[in-house]
């Protein structure tokens, strides 16, 4: 038996996969990794990841091997090191697999100029799926683990490391995008041409009131010419909704399942991953596409 212990959980560490689907009509959010590009890359290095990825934000976790050995790989842009069981320090890099042995501790210090990072574990973390997904929705209390990770959490990995070979891939080109192409939202017509012009020409700042549910923006006030209160209807991640204060919110992976604010526009799928990596104070702009 192999096991690991979380020696420092960090503040926003959760288990995620590609999302929980087919339950939104019962009020269950899709959740899933904020930056799905990264876990897609990690699959190339740890093919047998069992869809049990550890997501962290800003401050990374520290993980110590309690028993046996494990193979892992980190994805994202982060500072990290390994404290070996003989007390020596070892340099390590994202997107390169790492073999950790009993007593070794992986320390992820922080993400650099980005928000989210991920760890893939060979053979997963011994978790059972919840409604066909391993993702955690902390607000609804749903998931294989229905809360953020805590210090001293222990995971058992029953299978042994398949081979000591180390695999690496070139650091993926996850370019930083701050100008987003968006498509018309279902309530685009709730906004006058002047307001739409402010939306397209305005600069919006990502605020620190942003999390897995939504990214709150600060900028030009987008007041609807009709109403900021619509009948609740189904929503999907990437939608840009505008409450009555006129400050837009980009809905992210832990969306409420239905929403009652008008949606001016919507991002495409890959841009949800891109925008998730922009730290507070980043300035962004929108480019409204007319097709779709």
């Amino acid at each position, binding site marked *: 038996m192999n096991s690991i212990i979380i020696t420092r959980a960090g503040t926003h560490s959760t288990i995620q996969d590609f999302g929980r689907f087919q339950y939104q009509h019962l*009020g269950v959010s899709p959740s899933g990794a904020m930056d799905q590009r990264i876990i897609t890359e990690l699959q190339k290095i740890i093919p047998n990841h069992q869809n049990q990825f550890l997501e962290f934000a800003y401050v990374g976790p520290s993980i110590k091997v309690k028993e046996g050995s494990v193979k892992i790989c980190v994805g994202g842009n982060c500072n990290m090191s390994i404290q070996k069981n003989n007390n020596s320090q070892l340099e390590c890099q994202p997107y390169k697999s790492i073999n950790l042995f009993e007593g070794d501790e992986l320390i992820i210090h922080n993400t650099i100029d980005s928000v989210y990072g991920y760890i893939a574990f060979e053979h997963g973390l011994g978790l059972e799926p919840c409604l066909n997904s391993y993702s955690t929705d902390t607000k609804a209390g749903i998931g294989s683990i229905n809360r953020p990770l805590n210090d001293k959490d222990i995971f058992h990995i029953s299978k042994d490391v398949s081979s000591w070979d180390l695999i690496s891939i070139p650091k993926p080109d996850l370019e930083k995008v701050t100008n987003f192409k968006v*498509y018309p939202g279902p309530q685009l017509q709730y906004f006058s041409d002047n307001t739409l012009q402010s939306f397209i020409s305005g600069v919006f700042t990502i605020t620190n009131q942003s999390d897995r549910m939504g990214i709150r923006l600060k900028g030009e006030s987008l007041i609807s010419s009709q109403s900021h209160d619509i*009948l609740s209807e189904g929503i*999907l991640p990437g939608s840009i909704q505008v409450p009555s204060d006129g400050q837009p919110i980009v809905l992210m992976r832990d969306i409420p399942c*239905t929403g009652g604010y008008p949606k001016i526009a919507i*991002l495409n*799928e890959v841009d949800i991953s891109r925008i998730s990596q922009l730290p507070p104070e980043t300035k962004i702009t929108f480019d409204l596409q007319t097709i779709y």
Partner: protein
Amino acid sequence: MYFKGINSYGDRGLVLDFGNETSKSISQEVNEAFLNISNLNLQSLNIIPSFNKIVVIFENSKIRDQNKDKISMKMKDTNPQTNKKVTKTWEIPACYNEDFALDIKIIQKLHKITKEEVINLHSSIRYYTYYIGFMPGFPYLGDVPSQLITPRLATPRVKIPARSIGIAKNHTCIYPKVSPGGWNIIGQIPFDIFDLQSSYPSLFLPGDEVKFYSVSLSEFEKIRKYNFSLNELIKEYSS
């Protein structure tokens, strides 16, 4: 037919539009269409009904575009419906004891009626489940009698107790879990209505009918102690 047409929602979603009004008959058409589309077994990620819309979400625009015509065809299909009646009718015990009825006085004051009148009115109606949303297993039920129609609280409560019954505008609801929220709380039910361990995690489904009946605090506690599983509840309280 209230169905107006299908619109795009970004690069990977569709919205089926049933107009801007709400009514039970619109909702019945929405929920019928929801079943019909679900039965097509499309490669969709989620199909989300609400009062007068159905949102269908796909993995990408290519799959969305491939499936749009199938949905269109199904919506145009005028053959008599073959859906068996799958909706249920529920008789749900409700305790309107003052310990649970945190906001019942607001409704009494607004409509100048007694507590007993609120209880009798609320438990007199066979409600219709418009849809499930806001949080896992949360049913939007309606319509409440006109003497109970009450706006949301001006300041939402930070922590509404689990299993609370609420009223907002012309709808009533049950909060499956502890939650922040703005509905006027008038009572509590004695069992959980959402259970992740069950193969059907939500007790209520869109289109189900729900009737509350008033129970005393001691009856409430007796049922609460029994600790029903969802499967037992389905046997016990549906008809």
